[in-house]
């Protein structure tokens, strides 16, 4: 089949790659460049954190997010075979800590986690010795914490590059810097006119808002710092009454520090207040960050739906994927599998919503 995909963020690339592997002819459109610098996927920390996310997103998200690490391991193996790119996957869990004064925030996090996950063996209580055993450079003033064993993160920029190489070498047509203005059954509309396909797939995220009014943007601000003095080997979360900071290690002494969560669709640059909050919290976790270089600051809109869960909408010749919100990397494998099944006429996957115009293929 001839398939047109609007949006080459995480989910657009994954869809294109899987469909190409299945033998389809894929054309991928994106308003930005091949690296994906415009996308939420590019700036994200790419954590696979079903436990931490369950605290705000509840049981369904937890159940569907828990297999993420294993699913990604398989996807990355396939990708290594088809592109010769090896994308790093850190599966050593994550550590959650709080300063003594903010202990109640950590307790609240643990209480809500327990309400969703029960007595999960992959949630381990840490005392001071436990914390320094995992992350020796964290200050001794952290006296309690959690080790969320079943969490991890991946090298998302390497992933976006690997997917692009796999697609282009596999014969996909890549239309960079071409904005898709609207998507309808079998049709992608750009400034140059309408292009026809057997299937049109809309993966534009926040950019799809004009076609899907329920999509809203949730502003996130994120910093990339280079800190050669700091050695953290896994994502660290700091609990605080008003903001939750995470620090995610990336190759090259880079740490991704984030993220604000503001119900705003502004994509204006990072504000002073947000940067102050992020950086003062960062410095409080490790004084070695004082001399770190701030190499990037980004503000992007995470695409979300009213229940903050993803949706795959399917009708004849049209598939829309959206609402991955804060859970893009975590839920991408599940959403991908659901969407691929839906294209084959099987609507039983998670998050799939049939639209009225669907004529069932039996």
């Amino acid at each position: 089949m001839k398939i047109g995909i609007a949006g080459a963020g995480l989910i657009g690339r994954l869809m294109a790659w899987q469909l190409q592997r299945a033998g389809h002819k894929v054309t991928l459109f994106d308003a930005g460049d091949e690296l994906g610098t415009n996308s939420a996927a590019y700036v994200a920390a790419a954590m696979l954190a079903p436990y931490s996310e369950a605290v705000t997103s509840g049981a369904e998200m937890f159940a569907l997010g828990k297999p993420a690490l294993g699913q990604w391991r398989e996807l990355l193996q396939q990708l290594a075979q088809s592109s010769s790119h090896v994308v790093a996957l850190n599966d050593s869990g994550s550590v959650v800590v709080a300063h003594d004064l903010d202990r109640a925030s950590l307790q609240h996090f643990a209480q809500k986690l327990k309400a969703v996950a029960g007595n999960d063996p992959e949630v381990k209580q840490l005392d001071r010795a436990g914390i320094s055993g995992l992350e020796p450079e964290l200050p001794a003033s952290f006296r309690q914490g959690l080790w969320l064993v079943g969490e991890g993160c991946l090298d998302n920029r390497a992933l976006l590059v690997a997917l692009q190489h796999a697609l282009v070498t596999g014969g996909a047509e890549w239309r960079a810097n071409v904005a898709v203005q609207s998507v309808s059954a079998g049709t992608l509309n750009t400034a140059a006119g309408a292009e026809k396909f057997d299937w049109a797939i809309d993966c534009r995220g926040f950019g799809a808002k004009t076609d899907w009014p329920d999509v809203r943007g949730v502003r996130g601000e994120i910093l990339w710092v280079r800190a050669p003095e700091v050695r953290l080997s896994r994502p660290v979360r700091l609990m605080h009454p008003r903001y939750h900071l995470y620090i995610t290690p990336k190759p090259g002494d880079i740490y991704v520090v984030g993220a604000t969560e503001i119900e705003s669709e502004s994509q204006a640059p990072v504000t002073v207040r947000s940067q102050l909050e992020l950086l003062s919290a960062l410095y409080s976790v490790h004084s070695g960050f004082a001399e770190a270089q701030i190499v990037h600051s980004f503000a992007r809109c995470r695409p979300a739906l009213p229940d903050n869960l993803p949706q795959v909408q399917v009708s004849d010749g049209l598939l829309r994927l959206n609402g991955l919100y804060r859970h893009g990397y975590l839920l991408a494998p599940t959403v991908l599998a659901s969407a691929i099944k839906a294209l084959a006429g099987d609507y039983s996957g998670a998050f799939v919503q049939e639209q009225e115009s669907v004529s069932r293929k039996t």
Partner: protein
Amino acid sequence: MTLNPDTWTLYGASFSNRLLIGSALYPSPQVMSDAIEASGAEIITVSLRRQSPEEAGGQSLWTHIQKLEKTLLPNTAGCHSVKEAVTLAQMSREMFETDWIKLEVVGDDYNLQPDPIATVEAAEQLTTLGFKVFPYCTDDLVICQRLRDVGCEVLMPWGSPIGTGRGLMNPYNLQTIRERLPDMPLIVDAGIGKPSHAVMALELGYDGILLNTAVAQANDPVLMAQAFRDAIRAGRQGYLAGAMPERQTASPSTPTLGMPFWHQQ
């Protein structure tokens, strides 16, 4: 005696529900809508400060809130000076087409304690500009009197600092304000963590409760919203019914059988 209609009046508008509820910190807009409906609240507070109001950055969420068709009370949360608060109030008056404003001027960044002096000053300016001010203040009688003097017709002293969930830290102060300002609508704003805290405030004779975190951050926000709805009703009815006074010693209502009267003291 009939309890209905038990309405109350805020700046000339009449309400029957005594909960004012915030619109932040919910797991999702859907849960927010469900929780607000479950709470029975007729007034919702909305925050603009961090949402790039100059470019209407929060429009998607505001649309969601407006669909609930409740009375909106925009707030100045996050403002640290009189000027910031007044500017934001003017912006939200345009945005939400209401002259109601919940005035909040942060005095201390860590516990978000209101700055009482700046709050009085901002309240005075806002009243002059035609706003109907709902000031969030500490439980200090004199500050409350000053706020009344500059034109506030509603007062919102805290139970305890925002987000702490510690309930009524100083019932004595709250009671003093109630007794000294008997005709002023009084709302306990901030610090409410459990339904029992709301019951206490209503039993003290407070007219209403404003809360957000206690519902939004509960394991089950919708269920907690129902619990607060019922607690506020219970507290109010307890107040109207007139509670019996506390006594120092137990006084059995019937003689203790089988004990001679000269042993009964």
